[in-house]
């Protein structure tokens, strides 16, 4: 390689400009090697950190940080490599599966409502949190520090590192419950959010995911899709498992206030709709203001609280003064990972100006506060929430589910179904039109809900609790049980939900091995079919249909040969159904490619591989990325396609298809042009800050090689032709610099063909 100065006429004379080129070339290698772990480890942090932070920093700082990051890589990569192999529940997982799995598992975490007295919210506002107390605790709920031990229905206990809870305000939940119309444009919001990200150039290609891995953008897409949910009758993941009732030390008449708040959660304006179980856990919190109030008084009050309300109490000691970055023990409040698209968009808008100033976007709190909050959330979850859920599961399992599971239960439900004995008496009052169709009569077909104490509702809730506590075996069997009830009642949304979750729970269960006789692909196929059809056609809820399909795809695609085929089929189906917008389209196309790429052949023969298909989908994705204007990602996809093609038996043959080859060539050229332009802009000044500083070079170094070679030849020629040739050299070089990339010279084209 010629020296970058000499080789590239685009470069400005400053010395600075030659730094990134060299530097990037160095880090590029290590970034490739390291990619599996960086992406796996950095996911939660990356998605949670304000996205535009890194990408908007100036060229220089970008270069510096990148080069410095390459230092400590060796030890890290070793440690993480070991971890990746061990964790996987399956025999032969593909890279990135653990990641996606953990994302899915964490998305379905218990919901805890927060209902705080005014004084507590005021305290939080004083600390610089606009949305009150909930904003303060929410980030800490996403990952409970330490292990959380969960006892499953058989009495075996398992501990989880990544357990979490989702905090939300009770107001929001009750609002969601009453108005369901807001649900409709979730997908649009999601698309809008993704557009913003893509337009902003967020997405560090520095840690380019390798083949078959999940790209950061897709993870973002999936996680946003998973959390764009509000409370709905057909599933209880968003129904509160517990509620924090909080007062502060400055509250007058504390015990009465607590009682009052409790009353409001039970039957006042804050009561849940009839389909949600009102018997959730109440957890009483006394927030002690360290800066203003006397601790001995609070302590006495807390003792009193404990006497009144029992064990589920906590004394939280916080400072009320606001904290600035310069303070000694300041700590940045982590940003939430599970923000819904709407919230994220508003956060992005609010912080847009701040990011330009290169300041931090989230407020600071004292580290003592952070520690107190962590302890609080841990205690709340590990001792109260999980315990409460375990108790409920045991209770319902005993009282509702086992009665259904036994022989007599089957007989009962049969007789109910065929003779209508059980149904007729109740059905006559609620829904007369269902009599005789075998419906149990608990279903209110007008509202589309079951009352919370109907057995169907309780069973669903049991299954959801088991799912959230990651007891997938119990969850799957319960979903299966309740599924037929929903089908009889023609409760379509419930039916779809039960099918969806049954499929997901079975697939998430690490003990269902792909080889066993129970593992039937057709079953999953059928469940996905029913769920997506019911969601889409009968309930016209595309967001949920998309969620079903994508989750199914992600979990199926690692389950062996036949399953990956089915996964690809469903991914394609989701495209066909038009569930995704243009950006979703690209992301899902990439997933299709990876489904095909992951398919394992038999032995070493390569029999049953789908490399060509994977390549086609990669090319399509590249094309779409170009349309979205992200040439650097398109370049990656093209490289990937190239790799796939070269792995087939007759890799050269593709060039014999004339139109196809011409199209590929064109696309490649377009990508290169775009990258070249971006590169030029990147050098032309520090104003052009964005994505393209390092990343583009990443891609271009290789691609430019051919061009540079040629250019240096031109340079040499012009040098040889002495003073008289100066005019000519100007002529040859000058038009080349801007136009060169739009009109590739024959030489470079020869160099750049399929390897």
């Amino acid at each position: 390689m010629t020296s970058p100065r000499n080789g590239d006429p685009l470069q400005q004379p400053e010395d600075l400009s030659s730094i990134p080129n060299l530097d990037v070339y160095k880090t590029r290698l290590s970034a490739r090697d390291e990619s599996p772990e960086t992406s796996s480890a950095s996911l939660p942090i990356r998605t949670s950190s304000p996205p535009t932070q890194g990408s908007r920093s100036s060229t220089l700082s970008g270069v510096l940080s990148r080069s410095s990051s390459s230092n400590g890589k060796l030890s890290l990569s070793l440690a993480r490599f070991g971890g990746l192999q061990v964790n996987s529940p399956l025999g032969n997982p593909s890279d990135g599966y653990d990641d996606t799995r953990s994302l899915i598992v964490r998305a379905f975490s218990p919901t805890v409502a927060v209902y705080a007295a005014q004084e507590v919210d005021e305290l939080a506002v004083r600390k610089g949190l606009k949305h009150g107390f909930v904003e303060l605790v929410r980030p800490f709920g996403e990952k409970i520090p330490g292990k959380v031990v969960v006892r499953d229905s058989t009495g075996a206990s398992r501990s989880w590192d990544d357990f979490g809870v989702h905090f939300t305000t009770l107001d929001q939940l009750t609002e969601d419950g009453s108005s369901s119309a807001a649900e409709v444009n979730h997908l649009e919001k999601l698309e809008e959010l993704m557009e913003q990200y893509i337009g902003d150039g967020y997405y560090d290609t520095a840690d380019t995911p390798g083949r078959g891995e999940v790209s950061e953008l897709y993870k973002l897409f999936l996680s946003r899709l998973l959390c764009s949910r509000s409370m709905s009758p057909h599933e209880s993941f968003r129904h509160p498992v517990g509620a924090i009732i909080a007062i502060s030390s400055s509250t007058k008449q504390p015990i009465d206030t607590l009682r009052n708040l409790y009353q409001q959660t039970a039957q006042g304006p804050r009561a849940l709709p009839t389909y949600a179980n009102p018997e959730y856990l109440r957890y009483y919190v006394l927030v002690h203001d360290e800066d203003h109030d006397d601790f001995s008084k609070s302590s006495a009050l807390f003792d009193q609280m404990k006497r009144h309300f029992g064990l589920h109490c906590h004394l939280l000691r916080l400072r009320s003064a606001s904290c600035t970055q310069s303070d000694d023990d300041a700590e940045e409040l982590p940003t939430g990972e599970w923000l819904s698209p709407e919230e994220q968009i508003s956060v992005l808008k609010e912080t847009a100006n701040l990011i330009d100033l290169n300041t931090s976007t989230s407020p600071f709190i004292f580290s003592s506060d952070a520690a107190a909050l962590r302890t609080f959330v841990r205690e709340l979850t590990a001792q109260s929430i999980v315990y409460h859920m375990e108790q409920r599961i045991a209770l319902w399992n005993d009282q509702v589910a086992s009665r259904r599971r036994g022989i007599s239960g089957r007989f009962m439900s049969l007789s109910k179904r065929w003779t209508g004995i059980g149904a007729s008496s109740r059905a006559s009052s609620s829904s007369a039109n269902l009599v005789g169709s075998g419906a149990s009569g608990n279903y209110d077909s007008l509202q589309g809900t079951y009352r919370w104490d109907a057995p169907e509702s309780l069973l669903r809730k049991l299954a959801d609790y088991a799912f959230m506590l990651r007891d997938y075996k119990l969850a799957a069997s319960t979903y299966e049980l309740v599924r037929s009830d929903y089908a009889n009642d023609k409760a379509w949304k419930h039916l779809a939900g039960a099918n969806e979750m049954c499929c997901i729970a079975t697939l998430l269960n690490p003990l269902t091995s792909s080889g066993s006789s129970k593992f039937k692909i057709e079953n999953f196929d059928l469940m996905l079919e029913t769920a997506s059809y019911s969601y889409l056609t009968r309930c016209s809820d595309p967001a949920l249909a998309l969620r079903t399909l994508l989750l199914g795809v992600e979990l199926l695609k690692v389950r062996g040969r036949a399953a990956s085929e089915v996964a690809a089929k469903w991914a394609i189906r989701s495209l066909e159904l038009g569930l995704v917008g243009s950006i979703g389209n690209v992301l899902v196309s990439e997933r299709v490619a990876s489904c095909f790429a992951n398919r394992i052949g038999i032995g070493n023969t390569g029999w049953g591989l789908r490399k060509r298909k994977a390549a086609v989908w990669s090319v399509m994705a590249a094309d779409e990325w170009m349309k979205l204007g992200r040439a650097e990602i398109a370049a990656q996809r093209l490289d990937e396609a190239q790799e796939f093609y070269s792995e087939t038996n007759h890799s050269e043959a593709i060039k014999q298809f004339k139109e196809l080859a011409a199209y590929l060539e064109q696309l490649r050229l377009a990508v290169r042009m775009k990258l070249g332009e971006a590169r030029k802009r990147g050098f032309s000044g520090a104003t052009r800050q964005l994505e393209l500083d390092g990343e583009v070079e990443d891609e271009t170094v290789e691609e430019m090689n051919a061009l540079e070679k040629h250019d240096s030849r031109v340079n040499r020629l012009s040098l040889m032709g002495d003073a008289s040739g100066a005019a000519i050299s100007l002529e040859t070089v000058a038009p080349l610099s801007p136009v060169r990339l739009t009109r590739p010279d024959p030489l470079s084209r020869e160099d750049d063909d399929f390897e």
Partner: protein
Amino acid sequence: MSYYFVIISPADTPLFELTFGTSKAGGDGVPRFRNGETARYMNQFIVHAALDVVEEVQWLSPNMWLKVIDNYAPTNSHISCFLTGTNVRFMLLHQPSAITTASAGSRSSTISSTSIPQNPTSPQTEEAIRQFMNEVFELWVKTLMNPFYTIGKPIKSPVFRQRVVGAGRKWL
């Protein structure tokens, strides 16, 4: 229905390509792919990708005629394959015309839903394609016997092309 027919050598290179439209039910034999201009390369992509499936399926069936082996949902294309003795593969991509259900309703009186131009997976269509493949196979064998043809090279004979077009018109 629009068709893209290609003969693929054992080394995966195309030996003969032809695009044509249906001549049944008043069709004029002109291909109208629903993806328009992009169809030219997309068809090649799709057929090339289908080779993956051919390589798998060819060991599972004793027949040379493999029926519909693959489809590409975004353009609603189906791919049928016929194997010859030397692992030369005849691939036919067929794509039903983009008639929406509304207009299909008005035409349903004249065209039954199983007719060849409408339904790419009906037994009738399958049979027609089989006949077409058989005829092309015969033409192909005769071409191989031609002393001026080198095996493994693209077929340039205009007579062969004309006859394949004829077979297409006759059956599809």
